[in-house]
């Protein structure tokens, strides 16, 4: 059983492909296509790392980040967004995201961030 990762993105195809690639690399990947759905999954308690898109219809990424950090501060959130100014916003407000990556991101960069998060989680568990 690999690290439980939740991919939050309104672009279904992107989420699916990304999830498959993570699964191939031994992670357990879940998909949420909206903010509400994502919060529901996080509430189940299995998710350790969240890869979050910022611009989504309905509840947007910043709101999801804020709520997750409130209810489940142990979950590490990696922001993966295509939009520059919202990325700046998230960074500027210091909402506690673990890393910021820009779409389209190289799988290697994402894996590196995930691995760092995993290490952090492991150190916290000890």
């Amino acid at each position, binding site marked *: 059983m690999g690290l439980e990762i939740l991919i939050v993105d309104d672009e279904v195809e992107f989420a699916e492909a990304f999830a498959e690639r993570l699964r191939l690399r031994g992670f357990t990947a879940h998909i949420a296509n909206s903010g509400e759905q994502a919060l529901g999954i996080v509430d189940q308690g299995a998710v350790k790392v969240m890869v979050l898109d910022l611009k989504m219809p309905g509840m947007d990424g910043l709101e999801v980040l804020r709520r997750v950090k409130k209810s489940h501060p142990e979950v590490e959130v990696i922001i993966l967004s295509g*939009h*520059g100014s919202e990325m700046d916003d998230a960074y500027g407000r210091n909402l506690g995201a673990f890393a910021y990556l820009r779409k389209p991101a190289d799988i290697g960069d994402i894996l590196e961030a995930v691995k760092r998060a995993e290490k952090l989680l492991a150190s916290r568990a000890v």
Partner: protein
Amino acid sequence: MMEKHYYTSLTRNMTLIVIVVSFTPLILIAGLIGYYFETSYREKVMQHLHELVEKHQQLINSFLDEKLSYIKVLADSYTYDELTDESFLQNKLVILQNAYSGVFVDLGVVNSAGVQISYAGSLKLLNADYSKAEWFREAIKRDYYLTDVFLGIRRTPHFIISVKKRRGDTEWLLRATIDFVAFNSLVEQIHIGETGSAFIVNSAGELQTRPATELAPNITSLLSRTSWARMGAAESAKPVASSIEEVKTSSSGSNAASGIIKSQNRNIIYILMPLKSGEWTLVYQQDQADAFSEINRARVIALAIFTFGCLAIVLVALFISQKVVGHIQKADLEKEMMNEQVIEAGKLASIGELAAGIAHEINNPVAIMVEEAGWMGDLLEEEELQESENVDEFRRSLKQISLQGVRCKEITHKLLSFARKTDPVHHQVQVNDTIEEILSICKERSKFSNIRVQTELDQYLPLISASPTELQQVFMNLINNAIDAIGSGGGLLEIRSRVDGDKVVVDIADTGYGISKNVMARIFDPFFTTKPVGKGTGLGLSICYGIIKKLGGNLTVDSSVGLGTTFHVNIPIHAETS
């Protein structure tokens, strides 16, 4: 662009308005005051002359009356016998001469036959026969008589006062000769200015005194204008000479006549007054130019002041309107430039928003493409596909997809950073450090292109407040552009930093191929590039421009084709915190 013609006509109109507005009251006031002043001054002068002549008229009249009355008194006081006694007569002459030195030349008693039977005086005129003399014929008819000036027997100018007395049946005359010189001096006293003089003429226009100045021609025609002399002179003065052109005549009753006549290009003022009950006329004449010399001088001065004033007004009007129009022209130019800048800024802003939208919309599909390609790549690694003969071809193709995806990402990221509205945090930045940093990054590239890099950095450069990453972006872009402009042929890249007033200025000069004029006009436009397709996004310089403008600074270019280009980055030391 406003035409030059517009400013010239503006200058001309302003000048004309100033001149007209200043000249009109000046001319009106000068004319009005000049007219009234001149008129009243002329009247004053004429009045003054009148009074003067009148005073002398009275003086001469009283002189004559006085002398006549003495002779009368003499004739009344003494008998014929006493007066015919020469020693007695001599005695009386001496008394008279003592009282009025030089006036009485001699005394004599003439009988009705015209023979001087008694005489006292310096000349030997005893028994002189006056029976043929005109004066005697006149004198014998009247109680008393004053002759005109004549030469007489003694051949010197003189005139005679005679009083007729009766003794029995015969009449006799007491006669006194009045010296011309003494009489003349009375009139000669009237001498005003250079040409003003007086003289006396009889009714025939013959001179009775010596005029001190040149005579006005044709006295007789003047005399014909007077009421007192008209009768006697009527015959001789009938043809009024055409050479006399009357300018102005005024007559105050029967006492005087005055006016101005034109003669030989001179205007002559004349005043005529009757003497001796109109038998003689006291004539005063003066050149108008002389009489009114004061006013002429005043007129010259006023004219000079007026001319200088007008000249000054014209010059000042020209000067002021040119200066004002210069200012207007400058202001127009500045306004125009401001408008251009506003348009430019607006254009950049709207393009920026558009670019941000496009970038974001493209990022998602590109992300999916890259992800799918990655997924395919992952799948290719599975063993059953390794056998396929085209597996390498697949790999190359997928690699190409992700490579192009990265290229898309680069473009969109540049677009996003160009459009970024929110300011990244400002710090105090040493521009020199930023330049050094960028140069160290570009060192390899410049070495590869045979480019010599020269820096001349002001070590006392003050810190400025800016975002370090933005500044890096600016210098990175400008230095990269300079290296690109020089090309592989090699050249010189010079970077200078200095303080100019309240600004930090960085000059980045290359010896590249320069920028042509039509390229220069669009150099800061987004998406404008001269680089080959795929090499440049056309955003570099517009991003730099935006960043420097945001700092309150300015980015300018000097370039000449074939010689090189210099970019000047101006950043204010104390940026306004907006």
